[in-house]
């Protein structure tokens, strides 16, 4: 009852909704870079949206299944194929024992997600199945996945027929047609900076970007006067400006405190767009109010719940053999 990694990909990790409640001990929250795509993958196989998934970065892994199960793949297109046949994204797919699922270099976006029905059967670390970073933990939750790793699954599932429905690819256009504009709200030190140049500059994410942070490049942002910040809380989406004026956006594995001033905070609904930006893709920042950001978030959550409701109804009519 397991899957096994036979090619590891560039940076393949296990992520659930994140390690909540431990930031004051210095632990990052972690969790998926593209939370929307990860939740959709889980919803498609009728999992809890926060169930652990496999996150794949830029080059995907190759995985062999040691049991029958049902999977769904979302996020950046990594040309997934199952026994050398292309797999349709964003729909549930039956896999059988000894099937080989292979991913390649990502064609759109940067992060892809693989959800497995029933979830992964792993012990939690501090209440979460998200890969823990900078804590010297041994085992599959303490590092990126590598060749030979086996991950036990909670259940085995078989339907008598192939499933041929999914959710509309329109939900994922943010990956194929990258956002030209990333919305943000004022950061704690917004008034330390000249905001006009920040909004007028065309930014790119550099190749020095990862799950901890995205380093941006563009017209340097000037601080109005020389001030130092005392270390304070930071969070996923904080836009820090170090003294060289080139911003760093803290990402899912970002540290929970930091000493750089923050000009802004990426709106939560646009975090997945930032995550799926490819190095070199130009974009601009646009300020919105916090009330607007919360309204957008509430709308996003309603959309997710609605999709979950309909997909769950669909699963209600499917005969499953579970072992």
């Amino acid at each position, binding site marked *: 009852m397991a899957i096994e990694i036979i090619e590891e990909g560039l940076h393949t990790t296990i992520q659930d909704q994140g390690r909540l409640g431990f*930031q004051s001990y*210095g632990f990052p929250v972690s969790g998926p870079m593209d939370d929307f795509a990860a939740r959709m993958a889980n919803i498609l196989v009728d999992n809890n949206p926060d169930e652990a998934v496999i996150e794949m970065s830029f080059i995907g892994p190759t995985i062999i299944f040691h049991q029958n199960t049902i999977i769904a793949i979302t996020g950046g297109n990594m040309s997934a194929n199952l026994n050398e046949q292309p797999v349709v994204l964003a729909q549930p797919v039956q896999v059988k024992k000894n099937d080989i699922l292979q991913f390649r270099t990502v064609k759109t976006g940067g992060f892809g997600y693989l959800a497995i029905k029933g979830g992964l059967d792993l012990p939690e670390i501090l209440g979460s199945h998200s890969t823990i970073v*900078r804590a010297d*933990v041994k085992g599959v939750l303490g590092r990126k996945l590598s060749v030979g790793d086996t991950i036990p699954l909670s259940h085995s599932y078989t339907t008598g027929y192939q499933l041929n429905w999914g959710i509309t690819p329109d939900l994922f256009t943010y990956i194929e047609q990258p956002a030209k504009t990333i919305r943000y709200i004022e950061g704690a030190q917004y008034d330390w900076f000249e905001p006009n140049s920040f909004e007028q500059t065309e930014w790119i994410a550099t190749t020095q970007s990862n799950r901890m942070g995205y380093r941006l490049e563009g017209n340097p942002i000037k601080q109005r006067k020389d001030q130092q910040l005392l*270390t*304070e809380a930071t969070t996923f989406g904080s836009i820090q400006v170090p003294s060289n004026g080139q911003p760093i956006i803290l990402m899912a594995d970002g540290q929970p*405190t930091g000493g750089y001033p923050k000009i802004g905070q990426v709106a*939560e609904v646009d975090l997945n767009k930032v995550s799926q930006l490819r190095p070199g893709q130009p974009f601009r920042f646009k300020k919105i109010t*916090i009330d607007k950001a919360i309204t957008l978030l509430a709308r996003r959550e309603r959309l997710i719940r609605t999709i979950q409701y309909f997909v769950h109804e669909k699963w209600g009519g499917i005969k499953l053999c579970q072992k």
Partner: protein
Amino acid sequence: MRLQSISENTIMMTLPNNPDLSTYLIAVKHHLDNQAFILETVIGYRTITVYFNPLQVTHQEILTFITATWEQKQAEQIHSTLHHIPVCYDKAFGIDIEHVMKEHQLSLQKIIALHTTPTYNVSFLGFSPGFPFLTGMNQHLATPRKNNPRLEVPKGSVGIAGGQTGIYPSTSPGGWQIIGRTPINLLPLDADRPTLLVPGDQIRFYPINKTEFEQLQKEERIKNGN
């Protein structure tokens, strides 16, 4: 006092700078952490940041609650543990100790004495899991960070950066001047005690030699099951 909504789900309270702020912040943190509608709180040198679900409780409600808590809260006794942390200052571990000696024209013995005399307070944890921000270092030891941060500082390294001292709980990149290493594991990772040190604790360092370091390291490994 300043209150700011810094994201959809966080409000940060910033206080006027004051060296004794830490105990206040910890007392307020404990009170806030006990509220069902508050998910977690993170303290800094002069800030406390409150995380909540903005679809369940409004920013205005949180603002009102924090203000009331702050006004009611007097400095109260916080539970504090004093930890005695062994450090081997041998230059095999204290890879920058010779630099610090030169910088201040001090002997190795003098540096060890200056570093092991004070009782340090853990103001908060941050930067990486279990990393303590300590106050109380003798300012004669203050040394600027390295110009080029190391890609890998070994787990347990004890360092100095400007006027601060600290311990790296796990192997990570870093720019601190490394003066020694402790064999003690700062990351027990138990759900009720994920880190050895918690805000409000106190620590004192004491010097050990290399043989004692290796012995203690062995004991720690057995204790932590690896």
